[in-house]
């Protein structure tokens, strides 16, 4: 099989900010066009991403155990966790919305953390899967990550909308803080991971 011409074996570096090609050679090259530091591979990508992913897994526990909202309707109410909120949506006969919330608040964060861990393990232990499909997984993970903010926006809207003192009210709970942190951490994790590391496995 003839070797594909990559930037690295052509002696070039891509500036990730402005996409200019720069000749490698100097010790700490800067992009002449936008002034960013350029690297052939993101430095410390593996260790930073591992740290973020492990933090994300830990925070999933409080995010799912602690209540994320406290709903009072006509005087009575109880705190809701993510799961109990979804179950009560199903009991109210709103199955499509329950599925949507389930996808955004449970499936997306877990899938994202598992997916990035899988990619990290691939690079760490030099497992050779189809690099094309791994990149596809990476792009999919980066694409869906922002949709887990859905629950937080919904809580913010409901908190403002249902604000009638003792009659009816919605207030956020401590689980929401943990959940918000999970979302931010997974966004940073997928940003820090350098997908070019997957393709480097093929070269060696």
């Amino acid at each position, binding site marked *: 099989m003839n070797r*594909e*011409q*990559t*930037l*690295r*074996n*052509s*002696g*070039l570096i*891509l500036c990730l*900010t*402005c*996409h*200019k*090609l720069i000749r490698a050679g100097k010790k700490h090259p800067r992009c002449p*066009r*936008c*002034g*960013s530091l350029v690297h052939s591979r993101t430095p410390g990508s593996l260790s930073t991403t591992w740290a973020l992913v492990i933090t994300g897994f830990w925070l999933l526990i409080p995010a799912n155990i602690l209540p994320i909202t406290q709903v009072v*309707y*006509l005087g009575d109410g109880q705190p809701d966790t993510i799961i109990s909120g979804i179950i009560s*949506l199903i009991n109210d006969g*709103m199955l499509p*919305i329950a599925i*949507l*919330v389930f996808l955004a608040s449970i499936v997306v964060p877990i899938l994202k953390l598992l997916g990035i861990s899988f990619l990290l393990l691939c690079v760490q232990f030099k497992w050779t899967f189809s*690099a*094309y499909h791994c*990149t*596809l997984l*990476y*792009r999919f993970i980066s694409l869906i990550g*922002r*949709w887990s*903010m*859905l629950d*937080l*926006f*919904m809580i*913010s*809207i*409901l*908190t*403002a*909308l*249902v*604000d*009638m003192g003792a*009659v*009816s009210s919605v*207030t*956020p709970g401590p689980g*929401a*803080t943990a959940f*918000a942190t999970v979302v*931010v951490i997974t966004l940073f994790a997928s*940003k820090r991971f350098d*997908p*070019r590391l997957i*393709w480097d496995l093929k070269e060696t």
Partner: protein
Amino acid sequence: MGIPLTIKPQTLIGCPNCDLLVQRPSSKKRHDACCPRCGSLLVRSSLDSINRTLALSISGLILFIPACFLPLLELNIYGHTGSCTMIKGVLQMMKSGYWWMSCLVLFCSILVPFFIQMLLFGLSLALKLGAWPSLLVRPLKLYQSLTEWAMLDVYMLGILIALIKMEDYGDIFPGPGLYCFIGLLVLATLSILSFDAGLAWSLIERRTP
């Protein structure tokens, strides 16, 4: 192994996701180019990028104020009424002590989309006038790092779910802010799509003395 000297570096592009060196498609072709190895989008073509971005970002900025301050939804439970605006959603959470969450919502749903429209307006105006090319580097970098934090589309879905969820509890109806918000969402998405960052970078490079 170096690149052959006969090939100019301007005719080559690199894939940020798999490090492949790709021949740049000729600029006459008006379609998107994808990486042949991993399928990532490399070049997005947009027609008349600067003028369109300018027009769309001005309209977006105009709609921003009513979308933020007019009520998105109005609710009536047995005579008790409530309404929500984007700003009130943030302030209310701040009041209950969840400052980190309210800052995050403020950042993703109001600050970042607003700054993006401002930056697109400023950048496309300056590029159109051909003025101050070297001053545009920082705003363009800021714009590129902010785009992934703009979440108006996710917020829209949040409004819809809140609307359907509260239907059983009382009378809920869309407020005037919602129509402005939908307009803003469309304009903000279109202005980001029409802005060609690659073109902006090459214009800045060419005009910098």
